[in-house]
């Protein structure tokens, strides 16, 4: 006997069921209606847009990419001038976004973990200071924090001529921080190459060490060997090349400094604001991750006579990281998305450059679409990584 109102029945009924009572047919009908509504609304908006564009005689398309941008960009990782094309200006913007996001992510992870651990300290003063840092940073809008730091940099530091000079060669003024950097030398490339090769080699050494430990029981201090090599070998190469010490020192010429490395106030304010704001959230994540570990795990590790370093490295961290990494990645993504607020304090990130492009060319739709596509690319590649990571971690589980 079939019930009268069957929710899951197929079409093979003896009695003909009217299609609005049949769940499957109703679902199909419902989906067609939904798609039709979405399609109609999209078409309506599209036709309006076409009519409006035709009326304002704006040409659509990405033809403007090849045209001359004719605006300057304050800072750039690649060579750029106002005579370059829009596409190159946008590339400069994207690289600037990546630059602030990359440095920001590294600093946020370090500072956030530090504060998260401090929050769990048995020292009352340390724990309370970490707690108030977290509360204050989380509860003030990041844009307000950016304006605040930018105002501090811009109003409190003197003009270049009266620049503060705390250490020889380092200058602080309202045009930014100026540092001396080593003059380019052929030794640097070799040192960097060797350093990278040692890091890669260290990874393989570590794997080989684990395999050997499983077979023979002997422990190989792969981490220490790699660290020692990574420090000493580049130093040796530096000495072999005759120890070049020539520095490029910033010098005041006219109204601003030249030479050395300049970190602009816009970049500093953006980085400082983003890092402080996000590290408060990261601290809470790290704290929750460490607290998620059962005390029994630590006691068991001590019972089998692991040293404190090994307890941390082999027992606590692998389990805490599994809890920490997913929300941590989404905070990193938040930092990258929040870096678009650069447009408010005048750092030339992708959104700022795209905004200038929109204002100059009138290509609003293309401009906003480009911003969305670039950030969607960051987000989707992060979630791909997350899926891979979750799968990788699921294998380790029992």
């Amino acid at each position: 006997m079939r019930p009268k109102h069957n929710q899951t029945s197929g079409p093979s009924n003896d009695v003909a069921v009217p299609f609005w009572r049949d769940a499957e047919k109703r679902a199909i009908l419902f989906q067609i209606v939904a798609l039709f509504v979405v399609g109609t609304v999209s078409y309506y908006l599209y036709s309006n847009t076409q009519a409006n564009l035709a009326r304002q005689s704006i040409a659509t398309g990405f033809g403007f990419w090849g045209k001359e941008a004719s605006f300057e960009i304050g800072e750039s990782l690649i060579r750029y001038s106002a005579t370059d094309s829009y596409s190159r200006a946008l590339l400069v913007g994207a690289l600037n976004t990546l630059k602030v996001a990359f440095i920001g992510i590294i600093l946020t992870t370090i500072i956030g973990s530090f504060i998260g651990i401090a929050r769990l300290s048995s020292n009352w003063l340390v724990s309370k200071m970490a707690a108030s840092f977290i509360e204050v940073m989380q509860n003030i809008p990041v844009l307000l924090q950016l304006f605040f730091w930018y105002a501090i940099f811009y109003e409190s530091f003197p003009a270049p001529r009266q620049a503060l000079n705390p250490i020889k060669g380092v200058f602080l003024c309202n045009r930014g921080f100026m540092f001396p950097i080593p003059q380019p030398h052929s030794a640097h490339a070799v040192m960097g190459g060797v350093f990278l090769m040692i890091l890669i080699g260290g990874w393989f050494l570590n794997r080989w060490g684990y395999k050997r430990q499983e077979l023979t029981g002997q422990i190989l201090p792969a981490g220490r060997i790699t660290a020692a090599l990574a420090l000493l070998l580049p130093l040796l190469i530096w000495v072999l090349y005759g120890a070049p010490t020539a520095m490029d020192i910033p010098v005041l010429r006219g109204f601003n400094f030249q030479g050395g490395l300049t970190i602009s106030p816009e970049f500093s304010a953006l980085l400082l604001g983003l890092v402080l704001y996000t590290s408060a959230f990261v601290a809470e994540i790290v704290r929750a991750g460490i607290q998620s570990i059962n005390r029994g795990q630590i006691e068991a590790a001590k019972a089998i006579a692991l040293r404190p370093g090994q307890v941390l490295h082999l027992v606590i961290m692998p389990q805490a990281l599994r809890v920490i990494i997913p929300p941590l990645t989404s905070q990193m993504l938040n930092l990258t998305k929040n870096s678009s607020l650069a447009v408010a304090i005048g750092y030339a990130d992708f959104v700022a450059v795209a905004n200038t492009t929109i204002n100059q060319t009138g290509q609003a739709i293309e401009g906003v679409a480009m911003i969305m596509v670039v950030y969607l690319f960051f987000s989707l590649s992060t979630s791909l990584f997350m899926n891979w990571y979750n799968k990788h971690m699921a294998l380790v589980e029992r």
Partner: protein
Amino acid sequence: MTEATTAKREQLKPPTSNVGLIGWLRTNLFSSWYNSILTVVILLFLAWLVPPLFRWAFIDSLWNSSAEACRDIDGACWSVIPNNIRFIILGFFPEGQEWRPLLAMALLLGLVIYSKERSRWKKSLAWLWLINILIMGSLMHGGILGMPVVETSQWSGLPLTFILSFFGMIVAYPMGILLALGRRSQMPAIKTLCVVYIEMIRGVPLISLLFMSSIMFPLFLPEGVTIDKVLRALIAIILFTAAYIAEVVRGGLQAMPRGQYEAADSLGLPYKHTMRLIILPQALKIVIPPSVGILLSVFKDTSLVVIIALYDVLKTTMVTLSNPNWAGYSSESYIFLALLYFIFCFAMSSYSRRLEKELHTGH
């Protein structure tokens, strides 16, 4: 353990070094040599940092003076706040009508505080909100009871921040629930539409949606039809928030045990009633604390409308600072504003934490 200890009648008091102030200091500040060093270093740091800041903020400062008097002092010029408070809080709202936005904000805050108690969460509360929203809307807009009409372009300052965040949240919530249900749906077309919408919105920064609202929405509309700026920004905030609410609600739906769905099925309830009577009441209860968290982030994110030149409370402060008389006192103004935001956000986040504890009826 020995005979002697059990024979003694008199109870031993704990050593004085373990109780009282000294005991507290020992266990909390000087429990080991590195904790002692840490404590001393931090105290030295505070001693270096706090006195000059205190001097700047309280001793060398001026609280209610003219801009000229501020030029001669080293400390903070808090006078920038009382001298411009009317503009910072209410912006361009017409002179003589200040009581209207102030009353509307008082109504909103009163209602929020009234709604805090869980015993008052009944159907009548929803009606109360609806009536209040109508009253607040007519207070802001005017046009009835002899109140002159105030265009939305003159809505600014703190009322604008409240309108964007609270109304954005109220409208986005039902939309977010629908999106979450759609994402969990068995129908492939509905599911795809919802997933694409949610992931796309969550993948882009709010600022790109605000740009879209300010420069692309006018292109979407037929000739002659315009929506004003505030409403466009509100739409962008609603579209953005709905995607985040959808993910929070989806978390609540996923937390429901299968048995709840199966029980509803076995009673022969159709989808509509399963959701309305069984699943959503339980799922929404779980997600109340994270929803307050979303309201908190919407409240902070409304400050982004500065970038599309809407005069929220951050923008009115910046306008004040662009006045040559008061230029240069940005630290003071931003600290005041940060304090304002902090009070509201801290209240919301501690409320969310309290609710989480109260609603945790599981095992």
